[in-house]
């Protein structure tokens, strides 16, 4: 018997799409800041200035969005909970992760059926949220240098001293590319599971509903 389940609550969907937009905008503006591929014609232009303004504005938006999602890890429903990040702690989770890995590598044919994120995806998201934090910390630490003694410098300045200014910049660049790789993987996997699971994975991130057959669980 197939039931329609409300899986992704509004904050989950909202932060998902804000994050998605932010990752795209921050990546494009970030690439320009790192390597200004368009040159301005006149000194009166403000190309880099506006690009940096957009980058920092979306950085704040992204930070608040990630923070909101982190709060929802605690107060959200069971599929939004932080508990999903540790599937390897339960026997079922370990089995599901292995089955999924085997499905992806063409060594097994069974897709473990789950309502929320599958075990392998959950682990990937744990890594992605770690990378989000790395980007936020490294980004605001670098940003804070414009005002020594200011808010960001006071709380994140020691990170620059500890890691090193240039290493921090390199990290900020490399993590951006890792996130770009993730976005490709994420869209592909969503499409694949939409096709193979046939439970409305793709539309669920817009509306929040999935078609779940309880007997399959």
């Amino acid at each position, binding site marked *: 018997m197939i039931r329609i389940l409300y899986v992704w609550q509004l904050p989950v969907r909202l932060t998902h799409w804000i994050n998605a937009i932010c990752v795209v905008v921050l990546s494009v503006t970030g690439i320009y800041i790192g390597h200004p591929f368009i040159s301005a014609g006149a000194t009166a*232009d403000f190309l880099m200035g506006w690009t940096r303004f957009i980058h920092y504005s979306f950085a704040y938006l992204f930070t608040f969005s990630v923070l909101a999602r982190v709060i929802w890890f605690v107060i959200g429903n069971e599929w939004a909970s932080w508990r999903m990040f540790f599937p390897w702690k339960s026997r079922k989770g370990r089995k599901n992760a292995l089955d999924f890995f085997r499905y992806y590598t063409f060594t097994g044919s069974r897709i473990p059926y789950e309502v929320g994120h599958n075990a392998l995806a959950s682990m990937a998201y744990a890594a992605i949220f770690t990378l989000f934090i790395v980007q936020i910390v490294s980004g605001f630490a670098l940003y804070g240098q414009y005002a*020594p003694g200011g808010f960001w410098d006071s709380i994140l300045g020691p990170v620059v001293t500890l890691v090193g200014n240039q290493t921090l910049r390199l990290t900020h660049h490399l993590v951006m590319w890792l996130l770009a790789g993730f976005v490709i993987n994420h869209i592909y996997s969503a499409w*694949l599971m939409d096709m193979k699971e046939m439970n409305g994975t793709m539309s669920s991130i817009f509306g929040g509903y999935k078609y779940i057959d309880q007997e399959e669980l």
Partner: protein
Amino acid sequence: MKEEQSSETVVLSEDILQRWEARGVSRRDFIKFCTGVTATLALPISFIPKVAEAIEDNRVPVIWMEFQGCTGDSEALLRANQPTVAEIILDRLSIEYHETIMAAAGHLAEESKHQAMETYRGKYIAVVEGSIPAGDGGVYCTVAGESALNIVRKVCGNAAATIAVGNCATFGGIPAAAPNPTGAISVQKAVPGATVLNLPGCPLNTDNLTATIVHFLTFGKLPATDRLGRPLFAYGKRIHDNCERRSHFDAGQYAEAFGDEGHRKGFCLYKLGCKGPETFHNCPTIRYNEGTSWPVMAGHGCIGCAEPGFWDTMSPFYRRLPQVPGFGVEVTADQLGVGLAVGTAVAFGAHGVVSAFRKGHAFKSDKLVQKDKEE
């Protein structure tokens, strides 16, 4: 001298001005010096008479030591071609011991150092130029049979304060760059208990040293510092944020190569690897060699010489980012990133093609769908 000091009327004592004239420094030069140093220290101009009095009445003995360095900081100190106030203060009035410029040599030189240490115990300022090799018991640099490590511990340990000048003394500099064969360390690491003020730069800017000593004379203490022990008056702002080419950066106008049109027009040197956005120093405001010029003004990007480990961390000097560890010199982070993104897309694309033709579902619901299709 007038008691009230408003921002309009700052009066220097006639006696002081006449005494400096007797030393061969014109009143104009002296007033310029006092004003300049007060501005460098970011003090209000009402402090100008206090500065003038402080450098008149007080005299701080200085012991200048050099270890693993190129004497570039001493050269910076001696760069003036005519006696200026700064030179008189630093060189003729206070410096008790300085191997490069002192007349004495050998035992006599050693004698004068020991004498200064004894006479001014706990009162003198130790200035250190060059890094201290700590490897193999400090055998790589010895003066008069004693290792640099022992000397620096002894001299800095008995000083009122220590000023480390140049990147070598402050952060290890070029001698400490990988693979650091002599185990070179900074003064702060060599003498952990001492009060050390760091004045990095390659070389340091003598104006900052003069200002530091004037601060010490005026207030009896070293100026406030940042996280790395550098005085805030000189290292409190990024080069990038005070740069004369900053408007070109914000506009989006960059020199793409040395000698190209943008470079000739004075555009921003960001794409030529300028490390101004990574470096804290007051170069754009005080410049070098009596305010003549500084690297970015001369058309070369900053190499970050006031930052820790600049030889390793700021290189390649003509690129924005360091190379990715484990990859060749020619591979940049962004080339690697594009490769990663394209590789991911190709891999998942291929996976998708295979998956599209794949059979073997285990769900009951799938079978229902199959049934529907058949019907």
